[in-house]
């Protein structure tokens, strides 16, 4: 099976070498771009992600619909002991803030979609902060090269999901958007923390088995409620899945098979639950009242 269609296939094709280097060189051969050009383009995306996080935490604006705004900044600044601890608070605050920033017509990176754009940057920013100063391997700083590597591995995972299932809420429900983003993020975190390709595959499987069947039910049809909170779910999930995989816990089901199941579940979902704003949270009486304004 080609590497676009199977996580197992690209891991096996890579063999014992460096996964990111293999993916980048294969992409270079197919696009005619050099490895340096590809890395530079991904670095630009990383810069936009960081800028969006900084701008998002500064912003107290409401969205165009008025449904969301200011919640990420509020969580980030929360001045009391929280049960989730510092890491989870920061990760959730970044994800919420970036997702809200997207709803305010902020400049973001779709990863893999705009609706799920908070998950990947939030997790990476938190993991880097977490690592700075404590790292036995990397000392105080994670070099940018490693972040770019992690992003390419995440993109390769996302491409398989797009090919075998879907990354569109209208086609596969929220499992396809926030679920895919969580899986890509779990992959990136595993690579960032020195995990193997096999560990990365387990992290992806864990994430997707937890979002299996998640419906896309935006209130009023806007990418806001529950979407911004699903970004929070996605980042927490990705951190836990990477933790499990790095601790050596293995999924008995290969990620590729779970992606196939995800497709079947998405295909059998009724239209009301796929980005039409007619089912799930969107169908609650209060949600309908909000949508009417």
């Amino acid at each position, binding site marked *: 099976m080609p590497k676009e269609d199977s996580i197992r296939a690209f891991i096996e094709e890579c063999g014992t070498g460096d996964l990111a280097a293999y993916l980048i060189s294969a*992409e270079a051969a197919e696009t005619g771009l050099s490895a340096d050009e590809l890395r530079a383009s991904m670095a630009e995306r990383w810069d936009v992600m960081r800028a969006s996080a900084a701008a998002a935490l500064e912003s107290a604006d409401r969205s165009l619909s008025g449904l969301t705004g200011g919640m990420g900044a509020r969580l980030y600044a929360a001045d009391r002991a929280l049960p989730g601890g510092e890491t989870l608070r920061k990760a959730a605050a970044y994800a919420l803030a970036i997702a809200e920033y997207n709803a*305010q017509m902020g400049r973001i990176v779709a*990863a*893999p979609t705009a609706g799920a754009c908070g998950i990947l940057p939030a997790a990476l920013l938190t993991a880097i902060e977490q690592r700075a100063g404590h790292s036995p391997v990397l000392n105080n700083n994670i070099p940018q090269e490693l972040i770019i590597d992690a*992003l390419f591995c*995440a*993109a390769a995972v996302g491409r398989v999901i797009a090919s075998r299932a879907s990354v569109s809420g209208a*086609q596969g429900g929220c499992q396809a958007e926030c679920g895919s983003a969580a899986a890509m993020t779990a992959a990136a975190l595993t690579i960032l923390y020195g995990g193997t390709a096999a560990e990365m595959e387990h992290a992806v499987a864990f994430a997707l088995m937890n979002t299996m069947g998640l419906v896309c039910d935006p209130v009023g*049809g806007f990418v806001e409620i529950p979407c911004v909170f699903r970004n929070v779910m996605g980042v927490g999930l990705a951190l836990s899945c990477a933790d499990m995989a790095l601790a050596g816990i293995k999924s008995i089901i290969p990620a590729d098979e779970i992606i196939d199941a995800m497709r079947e579940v998405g295909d059998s979902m009724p239209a009301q639950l796929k980005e039409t704003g007619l089912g799930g949270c969107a169908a609650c009486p209060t949600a309908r009242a909000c949508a009417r304004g």
Partner: protein
Amino acid sequence: MRLLDVIGPVMIGPSSSHTAGAARIGRAARSLLGEDTARVVVGFHGSFANTYQGHGTDRAIIGGLMGFLQDDPRLCDSLALARAAGISYTFKEVRLRDAHPNTVTLDLTGASGVHVFVRAASLGGGAILIQEIDGLPVRVSGDAPTLIIVHRDTPGVIAKISGALADAGLNIANMQVSREAQGRGAISVLELDACASESTITALRAQQGAGRSPASFGAAGQSPALNDIIRVTWMCG
């Protein structure tokens, strides 16, 4: 699918279909008009009609018409910028038959009085499809450099066009021709492997006749302008 399309594009939120795709449609329509917009009537169909304000679809369309890319922060302020530039815009809801849920119609008048009607759909993930230009059906994704030529349905026009491209060493990747009726208005859409140079476009435009749209043909049998090529439009990036 390319890896940089999975993490990407960089865009102004909130929605790849309702915002980024809408900005791309606006920009494509600007190319089709070939000059600055003076007036536009935007018709929103389906999901676009229900949610265009909350998704900033209106701002994205107008920003695109002003030439802003899908990641340009000015998209958010485009309505005020358009008013300041003297562009008149109107939004309305339309009901189209057999249309994609995210379909928009643009009735455009340019600064020199040129008129174009465009219908397009935003397919998701920022992908777009222009489906109609001045009443003639087309399929234009805007992903490749694209030459769109309105011409008379008469023998030899296609040879004239492809000859000009061959002279410039340009390869045609994809080509569609459709017409209103035999001998009347027709449209050719040519996707190329590379952007045409200014001189190639100028050479094609030098063959343009006096008419500006298929509507100018008038009743059947009436002789059109001297030349067969009526309007040359070019989209590249």
